[in-house]
């Protein structure tokens, strides 16, 4: 109650209780700061992580994601509930503090809340407490009765969290009841004594209690005021000190987690922030092996996780029964931190995480699709942690046998298949391509403005070479002076890096960077979102990079590229967003613009699309990994497409193509469902108006 108390009005109970209240304050505050200090201990032993830059951007994040609760409405019911509770807490914070101070200093009035402002504030907070109380009731009912699937804890990840959650909800509800009971009993007391009092919010919890207390005797009321106050105070401090023992700690830590959140997308943190790349071979150990190898921000993430289950609910690995759920990656680390850095007693650190806390399969199961990070209301980072843990496994030589051969081949041949470098441009030699487009190899004898970065799968895989040829023909059609690096190109290393082989990635990156710079091109185009992401975010100082869908969209919009109507009217198309084009790089509209530019094309959206797209199974080295799973991600995805009413899946990534094509067969949908790459579709539909100068008019004329 801000501003409604005065010394004379409250003296009768305050004076006698003052010492008790003072003692509780002192105890509560000391205990809280002690617990928080202990919780911060592991952060002091953590790896460095420079997150103190760009304050304006960071404050923006806080306003959007913390104060603005931006991600919450993605889950409508739970999200709105959380927004109400959060708003209630923010509003009530001041009221709770002034109430605490009043116990010791009855004359206290929060500055600026002496008159009208204070009355309005009290009126509003009456309702805030009521709303929070009701939310607690509903939330408890959800936990106990309705049990949304995402709150369940599979046996392999430990015991149910329901009891803890309900206990916390009960504590908050108690706090709200105590707050309202205090306001109600105090108001009745004032009215009885004929002293001025402020009306309580009509139908608020306090108002209801005021009605209920209306006929009580003055001594009973005094007792009630005192016990409501005491209950509020004890509940407040108990909650304050209990929160750092579980998921409620996010009330304190979320503000910092969001402020220090990662500001970039599609990137991977360096192996060590404090060691330059060229000195990584000199450090004793690389990657996360023990808990202390995490950065302090990643540890903070563990504390901030609210166990809402949204990450796991959207995680494709979790959906297909792989032994990974991002939620438990965090919860298990937090439990470990609590156990190893206890509030009382000695801290003992140092055991290997993988093998004790995590399983190897858990760490290799992630496709780095980013669905978890897209969903997390608190901006908890998962990919960087997975990559850091993989770096640790790589450093210990602990790599699945199925990945060792491709990694070795990437080292010696620059591609995961162990194919000869000189055959990298082999896909350009097909007669059908030579008749329709000229692909220069930029090996010093030829030059061009644009580099088509093909990457390994499109260069060597029989099926994906068709995407390369389609891309070449499109570039040629729109009049681009382009070439490829041919044998001079090595794998972009996108998955090499995300699988934790940082040094091999650096070698591939350095090789390609040099080759690209030597080619003298002014821009880069690729049809592989993984290469796109690597060149854009993992490489430095390169010419601008575009994905072919962006090029096509621009050319279609300008009218430079015209598309013919679809031949088969029975075809219904659904666009599948590749993770590294969509979520990681926010290219959602360009591919759709292109599809919609094809006259007569019927397009539907899958329920999971755009930033909620469902990973097809992962790219790069993930194609070699043999996961433990109940079914394939691709199969799940193909069924989603079928449910949407589509019979053609359009994607814009060779790895999606590989996974979805296989999945159609596994799902038994051959003949009913097909998949085509956006570039292939455009190549098929484009009206060949222009003819490349170098080619015979006769050849182009036939198109």
């Amino acid at each position, binding site marked *: 109650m801000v501003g409604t108390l005065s010394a004379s009005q409250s003296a009768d109970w305050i004076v006698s209780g003052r010492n008790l209240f003072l003692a509780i304050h002192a105890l509560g505050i000391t205990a809280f700061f002690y617990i928080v200090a202990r919780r911060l201990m592991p952060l002091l032993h953590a790896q460095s992580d420079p997150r103190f830059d760009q304050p304006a951007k960071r404050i923006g994040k806080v306003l959007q994601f913390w104060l603005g609760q931006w991600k919450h409405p993605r889950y409508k019911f739970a999200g709105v509930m959380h927004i109400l509770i959060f708003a209630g807490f923010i509003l009530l914070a001041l009221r709770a503090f002034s109430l605490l101070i009043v116990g010791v200093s009855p004359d206290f009035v929060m500055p600026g809340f002496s008159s009208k402002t204070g009355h309005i504030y009290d009126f509003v907070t009456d309702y805030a407490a009521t709303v929070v109380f009701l939310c607690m009731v509903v939330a408890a009912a959800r936990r106990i009765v309705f049990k949304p699937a995402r709150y369940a804890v599979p046996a392999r990840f430990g015991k149910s969290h329901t009891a803890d959650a309900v206990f916390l909800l009960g504590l908050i509800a108690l706090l709200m009841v105590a707050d309202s009971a205090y306001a109600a009993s105090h108001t009745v007391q004032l009215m009885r004594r004929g002293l001025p009092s402020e009306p309580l919010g009509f139908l608020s919890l306090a108002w209801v209690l005021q009605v209920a207390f209306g006929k009580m005797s003055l001594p009973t009321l005094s007792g009630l005021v005192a016990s409501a106050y005491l209950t509020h105070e004890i509940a407040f401090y108990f909650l304050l000190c209990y929160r750092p023992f579980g998921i409620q700690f996010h009330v304190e830590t979320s503000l910092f987690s969001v402020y220090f959140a990662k500001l970039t997308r599609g990137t991977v943190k360096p192996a060590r922030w404090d060691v330059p790349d060229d000195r990584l071979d000199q450090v004793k150990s690389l990657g996360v092996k023990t808990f202390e190898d995490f950065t302090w921000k990643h540890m903070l993430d563990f504390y901030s996780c609210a166990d809402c289950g949204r990450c796991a609910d959207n995680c494709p690995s979790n959906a297909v029964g792989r032994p990974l759920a991002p939620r438990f990656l965090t919860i298990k680390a937090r439990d470990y931190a609590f156990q190893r850095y206890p509030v009382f007693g000695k801290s003992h650190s140092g055991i290997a995480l993988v093998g004790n806390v995590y399983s190897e399969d858990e760490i290799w199961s992630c496709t780095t699709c980013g669905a978890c990070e897209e969903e997390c209301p608190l901006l908890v980072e998962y990919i960087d942690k997975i990559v850091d843990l993989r770096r640790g496994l790589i450093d210990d030589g602990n790599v699945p046998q199925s990945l060792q051969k491709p990694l*070795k081949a990437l080292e010696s041949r620059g591609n995961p298949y162990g194919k000869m470098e000189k055959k990298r441009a082999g896909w350009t030699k097909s007669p059908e391509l030579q008749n329709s487009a000229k692909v220069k190899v930029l090996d010093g004898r030829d030059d061009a403005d644009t580099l088509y970065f093909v990457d390994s799968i499109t260069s060597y895989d029989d099926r994906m070479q068709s995407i390369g040829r389609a891309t070449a023909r499109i570039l040629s059609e729109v009049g681009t002076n382009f070439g490829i690096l041919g044998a001079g190109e090595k794998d972009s290393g996108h998955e090499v890096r995300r699988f934790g082989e940082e040094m091999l990635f650096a070698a591939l990156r350095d090789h390609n960077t040099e080759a690209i710079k030597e080619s003298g091109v002014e821009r880069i185009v690729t049809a592989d979102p993984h290469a796109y992401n690597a060149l854009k975010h993992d490489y430095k100082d390169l010419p601008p990079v575009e994905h072919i869908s962006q090029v096509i969209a621009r050319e279609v919009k300008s009218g430079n590229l015209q598309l013919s109507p679809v031949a088969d009217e029975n075809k219904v198309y659904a666009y599948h967003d590749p993770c590294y084009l969509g979520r990681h790089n926010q290219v959602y509209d360009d591919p759709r613009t292109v599809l919609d530019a094809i006259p007569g094309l019927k397009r539907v959206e899958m329920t999971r699309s755009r930033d909620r797209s469902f990973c097809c199974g992962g790219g790069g080295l993930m194609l070699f990994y043999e996961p433990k799973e109940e079914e394939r991600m691709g199969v799940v995805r193909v069924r989603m497409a079928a449910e949407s009413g589509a019979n053609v899946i359009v994607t814009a990534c060779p790895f999606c193509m590989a996974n979805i094509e296989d999945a159609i067969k596994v799902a038994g949908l051959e003949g009913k469902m097909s998949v085509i790459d956006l570039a292939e579709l455009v190549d098929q539909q484009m009206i060949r108006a222009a003819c490349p100068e170098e080619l015979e008019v006769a050849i182009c004329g036939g198109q």
Partner: protein
Amino acid sequence: MEILVCIRRVPDTSENEIELNAQGNDIERDELVYSVNEPDNYAVEEALQIRDRVGGSVTVVTVGNEEDDEILRRELAMGANQAVLLSDEGFDGSDGRGIATILKNFVQQGHYDLILTGVQADDGAAQVGGMLAAMLDYPFASLVNSITVEDGMLKVSREIEGGNREINEIELPCVLSIQTGINEPRYVGMRGIRQVASVPIPRIGAPDLGVEKSGVGQTAAKIRRVDYFVPVQGKGAEILHGSREENADRVLELVAANGGLK
């Protein structure tokens, strides 16, 4: 336990397209990439695991030239304590017996309890291990797919018909040829290789080994490679020339037609 692992550098069959040269007497060696012979890598891993269990050290050795440095470094990065290169112009062109002779001299300069080789080199004939054992007068077990260290001896097993295992005791010191599948070799990352880039690798020539040049090298070799040939298509063989899908369908058809599918 002091363990010596004899390794060899071979063209990596998974990363090369092996073709015969124009003369037909060797494979085309331009643009080949080389790596540690796969069974040898399993032997090194096994040695490291034994060392980590019972203590001691692991030495890797190869007969070759400076190009073989890379495989020795890879095994150092994997965790071997030392690497030694046995190199001399006089060793060039040695046959299996020549290699075994060179290795024998090296072994006699040290004190090894256990000597491991891979079961065979990708381009070899699985003969060096046995010959080395005979020259040293050590017991020899081949095709070993598990090793248990006991007091002064080992229990080793090899796979026999039907996936069964035969267990043998063998006295130390001994020579074992190691089968792939005995373990899961650890990954050697780029960082590991960089870290051992400046570790000196001693190079020992014929005089220091006490090897008589007359017993090794091209001139002493009693086995000479004469020819490679590509098998001629015989009767009953059918070569499929279709696309991948067509070939797969045809194979399925053939297997089904011949009762291979129920």
